[in-house]
Structures are given as structure tokens and as C-alpha cells.
């Protein structure tokens, strides 16, 4: 226990803890929109697409967040254009092209001297080395994402449930979809220093799914998901302070563990109590 307190009193650990909790909260909230629009696989795709951008940024010595964001923006643009052309973006094509992009990043990184260490940091994060700048970026961009999503909340939820009706009322569902994709992209970019491109999925989808087990309403789901994400950030960091394991992976696994606990609790509640809201009793 005293070892934990020693570690926790160091400056770099407190920075890391703050970063993990902030990223978890923002990602949890955005995750509710991801589930509403059935975008989990877009998040998987995005994690592959941002990777070469992150590697290029690392090679050029510019911010990893910017690199990931730039590459992800290209992907969002391609998806929006394909959608407008009414070309059905087949999962196979997406898979092939994005694995290719990922391989491109790996080849680039392997050509550098410090190859495997850099690669690891990009994919699974390196939360203990986050800087004050990373935290400021997380706070500013996270607040921006939350504000935009809050300002358009009604329209976003409406278009997610009934795109045709939204279109008929003069909204542009395509643009709203693109907005959510960009919000996901920004969130993933700020999460890269903390959990890397590969593990951001654990904070962008899992806390929202945990919340979904308990409520059908969007705003309460966001509150629960943000808390679950922040909690996963906190628990993961404490675990990594106690045992020598990769901090990003501990955060991701804490998020998965939270979902598992929620699943068990939900099952018990179903067994003893009344049926879940929105579910027709058999």
C-alpha cells in the first residue's frame, strides 16, 4: 500500500492518472453516439487508419495527435464521398485497404532505428510519458467535442433513430453522421498518447455498451458511460502502479472488466426484479 502511495505522489503518475480519467470520460460519452449509429466497426477501421498518420508524425517529429487526426480525416472524407456516390462500401474492400494502410505504417516504422519501441507506443500508448501539453489538448478538444455534441444533441439522436424522417424535416443526416465520425476521430486522436490506436476501442465502445445494459435513454447513458470510462481510467492506472504491467492495457482491461461486472449485475437484477425498461415481458 505504501508503494502505491509513493508511486501516486510522483508528478508523472498524477499527470498520467488525470489523462487516463479525462480520456475515459470523453470517450465514454462519445461512445453512446457510436452505439446509437451502430458505428463500432467504424471505430475499428479508424484505429487502423490513424496508425500510418501517427507513424509519419513520429518520423517528422510533429505531434502524434495531429498525425492521427490528419490520416483519420482522409478516411472520413472517403467514407462520406463513397456514401454520396451511393457506392456501397463493402467490408472486404475496407478491410483490405485499411490493413494495407496499417502495413504501410509498420514498414515506415521498421525502417527507423528505434522501430519496435516507437511502434509499441503508437499502438498501445505510453500514458506515463504524457506531457502537460497532451493534457491541455485532451481538456480543450474534449470540451469542444462535448459542447458540439450537446448543442446538436436533439438532432443527432433524432437522425440516428429515423434518418428518413429527419431528412423529410430538412435535416441532413449524412452531415450529422460525418459530424459524429469527426467527433470519434478527435476523441481517438487525443486518446493516442494514453492508450494508443489499438486500445482506444476499449474506451470508445465498451463503456457505452456497459451503460446500454442499464438504460435506453441517451442522456442517462452518457452520464453512466462517462463515469464508466473515467472509472476504467482510474482503476487501470492504480493496477499499473501496483503491478508492473502496461498501463494502457490495464485501462482497456479495466473497461472490459467493468462491462463483465455490469453484465452479471444486470443478469441478477433481471432474475430477482422487474424486467428491464423497454423489454416486453415474456
Amino acid at each position, binding site marked *: 500500500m505504501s508503494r502505491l502511495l509513493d508511486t501516486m505522489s510522483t508528478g508523472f503518475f498524477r499527470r498520467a492518472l488525470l489523462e487516463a480519467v479525462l480520456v475515459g470520460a470523453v470517450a465514454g460519452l462519445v461512445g453512446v453516439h457510436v452505439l446509437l449509429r451502430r458505428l463500432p466497426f467504424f471505430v475499428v477501421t479508424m484505429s487502423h487508419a490513424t496508425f500510418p498518420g501517427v507513424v509519419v508524425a513520429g518520423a517528422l517529429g510533429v505531434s502524434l495527435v495531429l498525425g492521427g487526426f490528419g490520416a483519420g480525416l482522409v478516411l472520413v472524407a472517403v467514407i462520406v464521398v463513397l456514401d454520396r456516390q451511393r457506392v456501397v462500401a463493402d467490408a472486404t474492400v475496407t*478491410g483490405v485497404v485499411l490493413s494495407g494502410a496499417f*502495413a504501410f505504417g*509498420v*514498414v515506415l516504422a521498421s525502417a527507423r532505428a528505434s522501430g*519496435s519501441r516507437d511502434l*509499441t507506443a503508437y499502438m498501445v500508448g505510453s500514458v506515463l510519458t504524457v506531457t502537460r501539453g497532451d493534457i491541455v489538448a485532451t481538456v480543450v478538444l474534449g470540451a469542444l467535442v462535448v459542447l458540439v455534441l450537446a448543442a446538436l444533441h436533439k438532432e443527432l439522436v433524432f437522425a440516428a433513430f429515423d434518418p428518413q424522417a429527419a431528412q423529410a424535416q430538412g435535416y441532413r443526416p449524412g452531415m450529422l453522421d460525418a459530424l459524429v465520425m469527426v467527433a470519434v476521430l478527435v476523441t481517438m486522436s487525443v486518446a493516442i498518447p494514453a492508450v494508443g490506436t489499438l486500445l482506444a476501442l476499449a474506451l470508445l*465502445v465498451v463503456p457505452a455498451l456497459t451503460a446500454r445494459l442499464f438504460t435506453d435513454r441517451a442522456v442517462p447513458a452518457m452520464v453512466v458511460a462517462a463515469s464508466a470510462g473515467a472509472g476504467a481510467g482510474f482503476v487501470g492506472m492504480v493496477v499499473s502502479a501496483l503491478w508492473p504491467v*502496461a498501463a494502457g492495457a490495464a485501462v482497456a482491461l479495466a473497461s472490459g472488466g467493468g462491462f463483465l461486472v455490469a453484465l452479471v449485475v444486470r443478469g441478477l437484477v433481471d432474475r430477482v426484479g422487474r424486467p428491464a425498461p423497454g423489454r416486453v415481458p415474456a
Partner: protein
Amino acid sequence: MLLEPFRQPYLRRALLQVALLGVLGGVVGVHIVLRRLAFLTEAVQHAAFPGIAIAFATGTSLFGGAVAGAAAAVAITIVLSTRPRVDEDAAMAVVIATFVALGVLVVSRRAGFQADLTTQLFGRLSFVTPGQVAQTALVCVACGLGLGAVHKELVLVAFDRAGAEALGYRVARLDAVLYGAVALAVVGAVQVVGAVLVLSFLVAPAATARLLTERVLPMMGVAALVGAVGGWLGLVVATEASLHHDVRLASGATVVLVLTLLFVAAGLVRGVRRLVRRPAGVGA
């Protein structure tokens, strides 16, 4: 220059390995493409990773670890998606996220883990052992026999699921055979090319072949050829770069990059073909 590197026995083994993966991509990959199972393949490839990591840490069989990981992931996905509030996409996303995290966690327990992690995620094609090559050959034979035995039925289900059901075929059992073959192919390839790149090795050649032909058997032949040629070119590029230009390129990733370029090239060829020849009977 194109053949010279393969005087080295280790590169000859790597070449044999990519040729076998090409055949596997031809046999299994075409079914993956026809049935649009790319995301299932993605989930299985990530799921095999912690299994391998745990097997590596405890010194047991890597192949057994990969099989156990993949089986656990498929089982969890099926159980989760029967929950009323969890759909299949979200279930697979949870499985991918959690299993990758578990793998990273296990690997990170070891000192100097970055190099180990890189190996397990991206493979070490140039360091493939004769045992691994033999194992891939076995997987090829098993998948070929299994899928070959029910080839006609699988193609029927891929194109007309309801029709196959109406004809009295047991579609669920055919699905099980196919999913089993996909999982076997993934775990057979994952140790050599790593948990992140398997998808490309299996799917990219088949997707390329589908752009060039409509018929299933020729598609398998073309896919196997594309896989083998892409593997050979990729190995040549990676070896040339490291021997003569002093640039270390990860060989597995270089092969995947070549396969992706072949896919894009085939897409361009098809686009040009469509421009010069309008299909008959299609308006608009």
C-alpha cells in the same frame, strides 16, 4: 536479382511459407470474400493474440494457445450477442478490445517486452522454422479437404441462402464448417505473420481475384497465384532494401503492402475495362 536472395535457406523457407499462405488465401479467402466474413476474420485474428501470448509466457504450444484464444472469442461473441441489448457488432468490438488488451498485458509482464510484442503483432516471416512451414502445409490440406468436400453447397449458400435452406441443406452446419476453416486458417497463419496482418494475407489476394473474374474456381486459382507472387515480390523488396540499401523493412508488412498494391492495381484494371466495354442489358 529476383531469384538471388532465395539461395539463403531461411529465405527459401519464407518463400515456401508465403506460397502456402497464398494457397490458403485462395481456398479460404475466396469464401471469406463471398460471404463477407472479413470482420469475423479480424475478430479471430485479434482473439488468437492473447492465447499465443499466454502460451509463449508459460512455455506451452503456441498453436494450442491460438486455437484456445480463437475458440474463446467466438464463444463469447455468440453468448454476448444473445443478450437483448447487445448486437453482434458491439459484441465483436468488445471482444477485440478486451482480447488485445489482455494480450498486451501478458506480454508487458516480461522485461524488454516491446520486441516480443512487435514479433507477435507483426510476425517474423524471415525467421520461420521448418516446423511452422509444415504446420501451415497441414492447415492448407485440412482446409482444402474440408471446404472441398462441401464446395458446391458452400457456394450455393453464399449466393442464395434461402434457396439452399429450401432445398433441404443444413445451412447452420455448413456455416460451422466454414467458420471452423476460417478460424483454423487464421491460427495457422497468425504465428508467422502476426496478429495484425493475418487478415491481409488471407483476404487481399481473394479480393483481388474477385475483381478479375466472376467464377468461383478460377477465382481461387487467381487468388492463390496473386498471394504467391505478392509474397515473392514482397520478400525480394524487403531483402534488397536491407542488404543493399541498409533500410530495414519488416518483411511481413512489406508483403502485405505489395498485396494491397496488387489489389488497387486490379481495381484500376477493372475500372478501365468497364470504361471501354459497357455491359449488355444494363441501363442507366
